[in-house]
């Protein structure tokens, strides 16, 4: 194994390497100490010297280095500085030197000696190394504890690649875990896909201010996540302004432009005063536009402008105003489809669609239901100063239902939150028992049976999506979907084809116009490529 030659590059200051007569050897002189280290052998030292200021000093340093390290070559480079404390001048001088230097990083290792020179020189060396203008690591020398001439002090190499330091890397991992937990409101979620997504959001949120698009069904936690991202960035001093949240579905129509972009006095009848608008309120902060798909086309155009130029015109105004905000948008609709249908601007979608994260609904994260229940109980305790818990049996019963096929969780976390809050409120002596759980399960079933917050078509689609491949589902008319979905539900809630037939054809049976319900049902299902086993199978 051959050693790679080590080259040190340093700036000779006017102070630290000074020393007269024989006594200078008892003094720590950082540049000279480079030649006295028992465990460092430099092939070359490139010394930047202002000959006007330090010519004599340089000659002595070179002589002394030759004496203590005869095998180290020392080369002087004249660098004249009018003011070695002037950042611009020093940076330019060092940058010029490095640019002109024939680095051969394939063969040699370079060390920038940062201990000598003015603080400005040190700062510039650091910046130049960090920006990779010099393929070098930083070399630091330090005086011995006692300057008795017996030790040349110490030296150490600072590698700016932080990943090389175990303790720093550990700290980063810890910070990252803390941040991820922060984004999840401290909930110990177990769903691997969700946790992976949070890690990605954490990286994106910490590093960029580019727009983020959160896609997911109602109640999947978009708003909470946006708030947490804001709080995280505020904590990291990446944002100074406020968190401004608006649901675009609530500002449709004439007032929408004014609400978002503000208006000037007298912009329209009734506009007696000036209004800043939500975009300006979010200046230097974070604007969360939920249900972005509901935004009108005019507002979409203005928003695009505001994102691209950070400037926009208030309603009725003729002078642009500026606002610099981080934008997060949320939608439960397929925006690409909306673009296809001409309801959403393609260019705006392209801007928003840079960092898109799909938040799964609660049904897709059954393993996260339990930690979320605990989180809701904690929140209840915080809000009401009352700690409430489940009986073991009650907890199991509720969990079995919550993670089972009957729980559609159509309102996702919003439903779960409301459900836990109801049970906690009805709990006696701080315990949620089986009776409370049973009542709550019945309540949820009724709510979901009413269609919950979803319309019939959505419900039918999700039911059929579980038994049919997407292409088969796409081939079925909406006209047929609701009927088929209801048939599927009945099949799944009965024990046999015959029983399902009896339920489905009850009216006909009473008129005795049907004799073989089961056969009729079997034929109906076959039309869609389905059979009893496929519906009720494992």
């Amino acid at each position, binding site marked *: 194994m051959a050693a790679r030659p080590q080259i040190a590059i340093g700036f000779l200051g006017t102070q630290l390497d000074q020393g007269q007569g*024989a006594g200078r050897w008892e003094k720590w002189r950082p540049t000279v100490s480079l030649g*006295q280290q028992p465990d460092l052998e430099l092939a070359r030292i490139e010394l930047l010297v202002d000959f006007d200021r330090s010519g004599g000093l340089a000659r002595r340093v070179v002589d002394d280095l030759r004496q203590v390290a005869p095998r180290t070559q020392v080369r002087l480079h004249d660098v004249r500085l009018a003011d070695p404390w002037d950042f611009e001048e020093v940076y330019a001088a060092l940058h010029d030197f490095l640019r002109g230097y024939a680095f051969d990083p394939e063969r040699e290792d370079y060390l920038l000696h940062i201990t000598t020179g003015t603080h400005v020189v040190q700062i510039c060396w650091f910046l130049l190394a960090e920006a990779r203008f010099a393929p070098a690591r930083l070399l630091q020398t330090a005086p011995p504890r006692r300057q008795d001439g017996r030790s040349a002090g110490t030296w150490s190499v600072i590698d700016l690649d932080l990943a090389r330091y175990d303790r720093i890397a550990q700290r980063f991992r810890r910070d990252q875990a803390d941040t991820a937990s922060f984004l999840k409101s401290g909930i110990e979620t177990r769903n691997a896909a969700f946790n992976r997504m949070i890690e990605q959001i954490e990286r994106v949120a910490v590093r960029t201010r580019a727009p983020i698009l959160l896609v997911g069904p109602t109640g999947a936690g978009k708003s909470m996540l946006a708030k947490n991202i804001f709080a995280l960035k505020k904590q990291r001093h990446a944002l100074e302004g406020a968190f401004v949240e608006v649901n675009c579905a609530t500002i449709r129509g004439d007032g929408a432009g004014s609400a978002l972009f503000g208006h000037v006095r007298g912009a329209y009848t009734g506009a007696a005063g000036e209004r800043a608008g939500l975009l300006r309120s979010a200046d230097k902060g974070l604007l969360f536009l939920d249900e972005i798909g509901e935004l009108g086309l005019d507002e979409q155009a203005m928003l695009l402008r505001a994102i691209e130029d950070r400037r926009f015109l208030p309603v009725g105004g003729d002078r642009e105003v500026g606002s610099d905000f981080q934008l997060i948008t949320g939608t439960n609709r397929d925006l690409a489809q909306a673009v296809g249908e001409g309801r959403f601007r393609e260019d705006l979608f392209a801007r928003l669609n840079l960092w898109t994260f799909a938040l799964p609904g609660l049904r897709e994260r059954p393993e996260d239901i339990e930690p979320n229940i605990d989180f809701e109980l904690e929140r209840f305790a915080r809000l009401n100063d009352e700690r409430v818990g489940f009986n073991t049996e009650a907890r199991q019963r509720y969990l079995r239902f919550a993670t089972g096929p009957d729980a559609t969780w159509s309102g996702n976390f919003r439903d779960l939150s409301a459900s836990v809050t109801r049970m906690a409120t009805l709990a006696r002596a701080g315990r949620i028992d089986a009776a409370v759980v049973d009542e709550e399960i019945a309540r949820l079933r009724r709510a979901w049976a009413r269609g919950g917050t979803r319309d019939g078509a959505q419900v039918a689609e999700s039911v059929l999506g579980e038994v049919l491949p997407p292409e088969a589902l796409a081939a079925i008319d909406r006209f047929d979907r609701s009927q088929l979905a209801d048939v599927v539900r009945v099949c799944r809630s009965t024990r046999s084809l015959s029983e399902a037939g009896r339920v489905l054809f009850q009216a006909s049976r009473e008129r005795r116009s049907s004799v073989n319900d089961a056969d009729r049902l079997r034929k109906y299902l076959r039309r869609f490529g389905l059979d009893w086993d496929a519906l009720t199978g494992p």
Partner: protein
Amino acid sequence: MNPLTIDGAQGEGGGQILRSALTLSLLRRQPFRIERIRAGRAHPGLMRQHLACVEAAARIGLARVDGAHVGSTALEFEPQGLVAGHHEIEIGSAGSTLLVLQTILLPLLAADGPSRVRIHGATHNPLAPSADFVAEGFLPLLRRMGANATLSVERPGFMPAGGGVIEAVVGPSSLVALPLEDRGALRDVRIEALVCGLPREIAERELGVVARRLRLRADQCHVVERPRSEATGNALHAILQYQHLRVVVQALGRRGLRAEQVAQGLCEDVRRYMLGDGAVDEHLADQLLLPLVFAGGGSFTTGRPSGHLESNARLIEAFGAARIAIAPAQGDPAKTWLVRVDAVR
């Protein structure tokens, strides 16, 4: 020849193991490979002072060397011959010129022509024999064994500046063992206080303390003033002339250490030696092993053996150069030990 593999982490003194291995390798034309050099230390691997020795040895042995760089934890050394002649070696402040000289001295005695070696660097290091120790103690003993070698200090050089020069003149020699089991009666004591670029008063204060504590006459105490060298320095030596051998005890001054403290340190070391029964002191014992191997065998008495002596002996045996017995001598086993070297021909 297959290289001998040496564990550089064994025993004490990683540097000394390496230097002895270099000497033996040159003398016996035996290639070796040393591994785990200074393993387990804060800065493992070769340091500059070790490299200085490797390079000097490689020069006079025309050796093929692999792994000779600072921080290297494995080194291969394969000598091809021995070159007498003039060698100018610069080691800067990388260790001691005397340790470099000791590494190559025996091989130069074994070479077939005269040599003159000038080594530039430090002549008085805290953890190495000083130039005076070698010139006044070690070399006279070797000359009595038959060595044709002299040493002069052209200019002293102190750490951390270095800047000194020693010159050794060496001619082809064969050594014969001397009986060194009895030091005999004390004939004379001479104290030398060296000052270099420092006030003479420092030397006088040192001599005052030594004269009083060791009850010496004024004519036994000498101030040696050397022309101002690069670095300032001070060294104090006691030269104890016994009937059968001369022993040199050294103490180095340094900044922050008062002249009186330097003198007291010397007196304690002198007393310790005087109270012992062994002929050879701890430092010389260590350095005598290889010359005795070269001389074909021999023995000496010394105090309780140091870790250095033990690991040096084991290394010599590993090279197959000698069998070395270290055992308590008759008398007080805590005080006197007999070291016996039987060279393997």
